[in-house]
């Protein structure tokens, strides 16, 4: 349903993102994880046609037999309203502070569906119930600052799914929220995607979060996707050296009795820091921080297919000997 080939997003001479391939089938949930500045938002926004003004797109994004790269703003806005929903990272900035939340969602319906009048209001209330907002009638009349961050995010989810899109794109939808609220929102997004057979592109810097929601996970570093695998395979048997190092540096909490053994235990480290855009080494972009780098890594690594529809872009993936 969504097929990306060599999508390049650049600003001036600087290429911010180059996604060689990414496919999302109908109803499938795909996660994109990466550190800050890795290009997650640029990728998510470019697919939805919401990239920054100054950005140029090249390559191909095919969605339901239509090429999105090169579409006019007006045509893209139509696709986005009706067929692609977008949930932004920061709910406080995405809502208009001077308008009550109910009418804001009603406006989205007016623009993107054939509904009119009373039907719109009824549908908004239905959506509010669907995203599990308490007392929809009361919430309808509230201004954004009168509801909690979690409730604001629910309103934005209601807005994103209002026209029953085929693809929902969520850019770190829970990063601004509390851990306890976070799980409720993740659960909601997962349930909605299942119930409506809605495909999902879910972006986050936290692997655990993506894993809770997605079937497949792609890892992005320095604007490049380096690995794609099923959620379980990626977390348990990562192949790319960066994926493996990232998981090692950010371990989860073990259960029950094992916790006692954690006291004083050091974290596995990735040396160095993420370079600024434009400062990455040529060839594999992780090369200057990778313990397994060899001379070969100065060349752009090939994409090697793995099990299922997975692949890895590394000269010496985990499990091969060559890289020390």
């Amino acid at each position: 349903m969504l097929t990306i080939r060599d999508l390049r997003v650049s600003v001036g001479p600087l290429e911010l993102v180059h996604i060689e391939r990414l496919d999302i089938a109908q109803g499938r949930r795909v996660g994109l994880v990466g550190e800050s500045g890795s290009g997650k938002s640029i990728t998510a926004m470019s697919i939805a046609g919401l990239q920054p003004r100054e950005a140029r797109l090249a390559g191909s994004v095919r969605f339901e037999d239509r090429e999105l790269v090169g579409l006019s703003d007006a045509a893209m806005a139509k696709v986005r309203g009706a067929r692609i929903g977008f949930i932004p990272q920061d709910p406080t900035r995405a809502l208009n502070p001077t308008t009550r939340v109910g009418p804001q969602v009603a406006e989205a319906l007016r623009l993107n569906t054939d509904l009119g009048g009373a039907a719109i209001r009824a549908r908004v209330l239905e959506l509010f119930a669907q995203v599990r907002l308490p007392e929809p009638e009361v919430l309808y009349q509230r201004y954004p600052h009168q509801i909690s961050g979690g409730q604001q995010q629910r309103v934005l989810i209601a807005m994103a799914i209002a026209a029953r899109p085929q693809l929902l794109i969520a850019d770190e939808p829970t990063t601004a929220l509390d851990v306890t609220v976070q799980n409720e929102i993740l659960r909601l997004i997962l349930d909605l995607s299942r119930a409506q057979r809605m495909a999902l592109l879910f972006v986050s810097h936290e692997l655990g979060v993506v894993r809770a929601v997605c079937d497949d996970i792609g890892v992005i570093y320095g604007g490049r996707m380096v690995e794609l695998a099923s959620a379980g395979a990626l977390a348990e048997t990562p192949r790319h050296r960066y994926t493996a190092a990232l998981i090692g540096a950010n371990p989860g909490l073990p259960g029950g009795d094992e916790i006692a053994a954690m006291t004083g235990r050091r974290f596995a480290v990735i040396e160095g820091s993420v370079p600024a855009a434009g400062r990455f080494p040529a060839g594999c972009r992780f090369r200057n921080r990778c313990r397994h780098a060899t001379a070969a890594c100065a060349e752009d690594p090939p994409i090697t297919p793995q099990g299922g529809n997975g692949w890895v872009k590394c000269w010496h993936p985990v499990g091969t000997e060559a890289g020390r």
Partner: protein
Amino acid sequence: MTALVEVGGLHFRYGSSRRGTGQDWTLADISLALPARGTLGIVGESGSGKSTLIRLMCGLLRPDRGALSFDGRPVTDWLATDRRAFLARNQIVFQNPRRSLDPRMTVARALAEPVRSLESRQPTDAELAASLARVGLQAEVLGRYPHQLSGGQLQRVAIARALSVRPAVLYADEPTSALDVSVQAQVLNLLMDLREDLGLALVMVTHNLAVVARLTEHVIVLHRGRVVEAGPTHRVLGSPENPYTAALVAAAADVSLARAGWDEAEERR
């Protein structure tokens, strides 16, 4: 045996007469004891009062009720008679070094500032270089401004700065959550090493329970300004007794476990 820091029945609220009632404390009835060289984790959801508590413990805010003492003396007493000595011995590192360090100050100036204000002297270049070396930075960054350093480097500067006045307690408020994931581990290991080498007590606010498990021996769980559970970290996180703690552990431990729970619930339906 007296603890280094002791808190007993502490109450605090911002502003003096919020809503007029005696009920809505930001923090209510907080008691804890931190031994010299001890480690304490403070966890709880956003707004539960974690940052407020450590600001009280470092003397940046004054409690409305209850006892708060450092090294056997009430903190009010310290602040009245030995303010600078108290502040030097209780140092804090904040979440976002880009916000806590002045963008117009070079690293050298930022680093010298606590020694200048708390010890009334200008540290030598050799001291500054040694201070940076301790956190794994080269002397060459002394002339740089914050925007010329990465987040991880800046947080090292903030840590070096806090250590420059030889504190007995280092308070860290989410010290790695503004950093790249691949850099967080470096800073956390650094904190562990420094604590050991310098014999510091460490009080750590974080939402990451894996960090609490590795860095702290004791933990308190705050919920709406009250301590709902306290004890050895492995006991509190390993077999929580309070339902709120249990929810926190379930939510934060590994979200993928939550997924397993959801799927089971789905199948039972």
